[in-house]
């Protein structure tokens, strides 16, 4: 008996060692290419070029040009997150609760999977081809309806144009996330509410929305972060004519504008803080939401 008890740990030792070797590359990789680079930025944001600790860099964020870039970014992300949530919710409600043909529902979900991944440079090109000066819809409106879109002040290279473009990946993401939540609404809840005399509006206000609330707010936060980090779409659409925070950082890194890497650190740090808050809210609310969806 004792020999077995003694030999077991020694036999297990090399096996455990091997298992550690199996996960070690992952941690090394994450450390080298994810955690250290990010920490470098965070630490750099609080250091001056001489290596002393300072809040000077963060102070520079308050300069009018940087502050307005962040402000436009926040407005853009918030607007597209709110509208993305609203329209995504309507589409998801239509396909889950609206008695539509089943194939249509599947087609919309598949398309949402594609469209939420169709971001970046090609998406910008698609919108330029559609709403640009010679775009498909611009010409259609002019030739068929006599509406001069660009005469009325619209421009695809603008805040509004960028918002319209972002919605193309924001709405499908909302549809993908909220559809399971809507499907989780139990038929019995509605029947129970109706048997107690509730109207449709009362059911939504008092039963469905309180249950969906965490999912809705959480997805709003996720969409905010999603829009805030998007760079390629904005660059391909506007060049660098619209100063949003990621484009300012892009120009900083390229060394086009000012050559102050520590200001770059501060901008990057502020971006991490904003997306981390948004994602934190998403994860917290998601955990709350999942209580109801079992």
């Amino acid at each position, binding site marked *: 008996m004792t020999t077995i008890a003694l030999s077991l740990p020694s036999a297990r030792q090399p096996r455990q060692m*091997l*298992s550690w070797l*199996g*996960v070690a*590359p*992952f941690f090394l*990789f994450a450390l080298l*290419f*994810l*955690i*250290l*680079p*990010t920490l*470098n*930025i965070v630490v750099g944001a609080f250091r001056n070029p001489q290596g002393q600790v300072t809040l000077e860099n963060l102070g520079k964020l308050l300069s009018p040009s940087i502050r307005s870039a962040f402000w436009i970014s926040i407005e853009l992300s918030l607007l597209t997150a709110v509208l993305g949530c609203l*329209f995504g919710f*309507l*589409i998801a409600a*239509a*396909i889950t*609760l*609206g*008695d539509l043909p089943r194939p249509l529902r599947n087609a*919309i979900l*598949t*398309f949402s*999977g*594609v469209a939420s*991944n*169709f971001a*970046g*440079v*090609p*998406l910008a*090109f*698609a919108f*330029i*081809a*559609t709403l640009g000066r010679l*775009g*498909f*819809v611009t010409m259609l409106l002019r030739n068929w309806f006599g509406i001069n879109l660009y005469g009325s002040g619209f421009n695809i290279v603008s805040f509004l144009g960028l918002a319209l473009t972002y919605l*193309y990946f924001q709405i*499908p993401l909302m549809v993908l996330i909220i559809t399971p939540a809507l499907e989780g609404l139990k038929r019995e809840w509605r029947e129970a509410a109706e048997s107690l005399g509730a109207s449709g509006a009362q059911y939504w206000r008092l039963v469905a929305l309180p249950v969906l609330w965490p999912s809705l707010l959480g997805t709003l936060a996720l969409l905010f972060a999603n829009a805030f*980090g998007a*760079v*390629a779409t904005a*660059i*391909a659409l506007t060049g660098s004519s619209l100063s949003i925070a*990621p484009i300012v950082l*892009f120009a900083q*890194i*390229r060394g086009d504008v000012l050559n102050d*890497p520590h200001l770059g650190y501060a901008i*990057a740090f502020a*971006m*991490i803080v904003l*997306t*981390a808050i948004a*994602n934190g809210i998403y994860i917290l609310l998601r955990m709350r939401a999942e209580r109801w969806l079992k």
Partner: protein
Amino acid sequence: MTGKQLWSWLAVVFAGLYFLLPLVGMFDFSMRMQRGVYSFEAYRIVLADPQFQQTFGYSVALALLTIVIGILLVVPTAYFVRLRFPGLRPAIEFITLLPLVIPPIVIVFGYIRIYNTSSVLPLTGSWWGTNILLLCGYAVLSLPYMYRSVDTGLRTIDIASLTEAAQSLGAGWARILAVVILPNVFVSVLSGAFLTFAIVIGEYVFAALLNVNSFGPYMVWMGGNRAYEPSALAVVAFVITWACMGLIQLFTRFSKFSTARR
């Protein structure tokens, strides 16, 4: 037709207009290179452009290598965590979610600061180093999708029994992973792989800031200098995204079928 149905149709029709018009516009624009007639002239020019062939081929190679790195990194980790270190799960899940939290532009900024020519590991100084850095960056971007799909795949099989059975037949760890585990989670790995492909093929920010001339920077350059070709490129990119997502759907459906039969 009930009121509810009417509203639903209305929502779907409006959504359809918003989502289909840019695709129609993109396609229409890409066909209008020759005055007065529809033609595939823009596609012909783009496809014959040696720059296109070179950058596109380059991005395809990058995407495939990223997938290989992702599989080598994620499959053993997810496997050992499930089998031996369940306590590490929260830490690993947190790490794999980080690339969704930290904007990619910040990650690449960190690379440029840490691995520049005056650092201990001057990766950005050489062609090889830059490409290794780019591949690692893409592997980081794909981590959330890769890990999620592989981990879901591992959940559906009994890895403890499979491992013991393989061990009792004398298989070592490498053999167990390659011959027993990988084939069993192959469909999950594939869906992660196709998503990675779709992300990497047109990626712009990493490539542009590391000065690598891949498909993303090429597209942006075309966007600034040509009129009709960018739309043709957008159509090509859209078809690739569709193909990747379609293949994921196909394989998942296929796997459901095979598990149901089992």
